[in-house]
């Protein structure tokens, strides 16, 4: 049997590895190749243009704006989701009765798609007209209706975009934090109580948060990676039959319209995808370094 191990390894791993290579590595390489060509409406172009697509993308204000939009969005959504899901986990973990009920309610939105959530947010909660739920509530306090999605100044659309994602995802990250909290040794809390630490802020700061460091690092990493993937809610909240407004356009929405919109400029789209992939890789690796650095600091 030992002689055949290599063969059996490939019988088990081969199909998956082959598929992954074919549908992840091959497209990536193809995309890198395409980004050096003038490729309108074709995936087998003949006109080599060198770095033209890259310089065009890096000079394109709309594309650079989309990168800035992503940064603003990340700066909002990562700390807010982190704070909300950690608070939820701390509260649910300490509640005595109906813990399973609260956990389910906060986790339930994970079963919803961004499309459905965006529909409810756009057409019912934050619709710009008087009968929208948010405007009805504002009306009770005598405030006039707000055009939540249509006015770039003040940028109320951020409130809509951030709350959709919070509703859909806070429960998921809460589960991760709950798992982390379960793993903390109760003896640590007992020792703190013996030392006279009062439950509350002190214990949270000196025991709970340091013990959650590994979970926190993973959550922040996932939050940033997911923020990069933002497409569904932006597309469904802001675009309509006339197209997409120039504000709040993250990179993926921009690439979608560049590569698959009317122009079908796959060369330009590929160059944008390569630039975005590089940005993602740099941020992810840098962040992983930074988080691990934080870990050794805390241990030392």
């Amino acid at each position, binding site marked *: 049997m030992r002689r055949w191990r290599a063969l059996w390894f490939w019988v088990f791993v081969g199909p*998956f590895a082959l598929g992954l290579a074919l549908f992840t590595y091959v497209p990536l390489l193809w*995309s890198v190749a395409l980004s050096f060509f003038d490729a309108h409406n074709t*995936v087998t172009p003949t006109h080599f243009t060198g770095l033209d697509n890259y310089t065009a993308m890096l000079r394109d204000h709309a594309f650079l704006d989309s990168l800035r939009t992503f940064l603003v969005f990340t700066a909002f959504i990562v700390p807010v989701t982190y704070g909300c899901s950690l608070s939820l986990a701390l*509260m649910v973990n300490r509640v005595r009765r109906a813990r399973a009920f609260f956990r389910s309610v906060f986790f*339930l939105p994970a079963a919803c798609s961004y499309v459905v959530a965006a529909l409810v947010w756009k057409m019912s909660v934050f619709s710009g007209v008087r009968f929208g739920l948010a405007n009805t509530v504002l009306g009770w306090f005598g405030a006039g209706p707000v055009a939540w999605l249509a006015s770039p100044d003040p940028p109320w659309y951020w409130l809509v975009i951030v709350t959709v994602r919070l509703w859909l995802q806070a429960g998921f990250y809460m589960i991760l934090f709950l*798992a982390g909290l379960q793993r903390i040794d109760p003896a640590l809390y007992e020792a703190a109580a013996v030392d006279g630490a009062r439950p509350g802020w002190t214990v949270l700061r000196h025991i709970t948060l340091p013990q959650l460091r590994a979970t926190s690092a993973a959550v922040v990493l996932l939050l940033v990676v997911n923020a990069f993937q933002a497409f569904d809610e932006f597309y469904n909240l802001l675009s309509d039959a006339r197209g997409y407004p120039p504000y709040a356009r993250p990179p993926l929405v921009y690439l979608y319209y560049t590569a698959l919109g009317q122009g079908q400029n796959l060369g330009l789209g590929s160059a944008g995808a390569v630039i975005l992939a590089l940005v993602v890789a740099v941020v992810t690796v840098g962040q992983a370094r930074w988080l691990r650095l934080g870990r050794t600091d805390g241990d030392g």
Partner: protein
Amino acid sequence: MDDALVRAGRALRLVLLIVLALLFLIPFYLLLRNGLAAERDITSPAWTFFPRQVRWGNVRELFADPSVPFARSLLNSALIAVATTLGTLLLASLAGYGLARIPYRHANKVFHAVLGTLLVPAAVTFVPSFVLVSSLGWISTLRGLIVPTLFPAFACFVFRQYFLGFPHELEDAAEVDGLGYWRTYWLVVVPNARPVFAAVGTIVFLGAWNAFLWPLVIGQDQNAWTVQVALSTFTTAQVVRLHELFVAAAVSVLPLLLVFLCFQRWIVAGVERSGID
């Protein structure tokens, strides 16, 4: 004194949790309320908690509307979600087991190649993947919607982590009985690893049912629309029949809520076990 404070804090926390729980449930309530209301109730300037009249007929109207290929899109979503789930479970569990349990010189290199794809967010590769799928002639086909999504690195990773921690005793007994890797896997390992299959399966199913960008890019023909693409097309179109839109959304969420409520325990276990820390 201290006791009273603790009790007050506990009560405050409970009240806060109840308020938050209600807030979290409002969107579900709105889906149901608007889906079963008449359009003029949805757009009525005087907001009412309950629609003046509950119209179950909206569901029938939705499926009878010839301008909306809703039944077809539901069928597409169901086919895609089931095929994706079964295919992923088969391929990723085999790969995860091989990586965890079959000693091979280059196993680590293969594992790192799999892990490396986690670093590139799947959404960044949609342009290149579209290029590949269109050159295969798979645009607007079920093949194009299913096959490229069968290889999520995270599923392989979860299976590998799970099998690494799997007790060796069962496989040792199988080896004594003269079973090879293949029969050991199917007769001994799989029946004892049901929790991880259920966990990964539900996560993949939810993801496949709710996926949007890939079906939007590949399902260009109306006949290849998934439920999410159909809903999105109506939302972003100019002329909308609101009550039909909401009842469609409610119908699209229903199967998932059922899966979710049945398998919630497994999803939680799967998420906790996904080895992200």
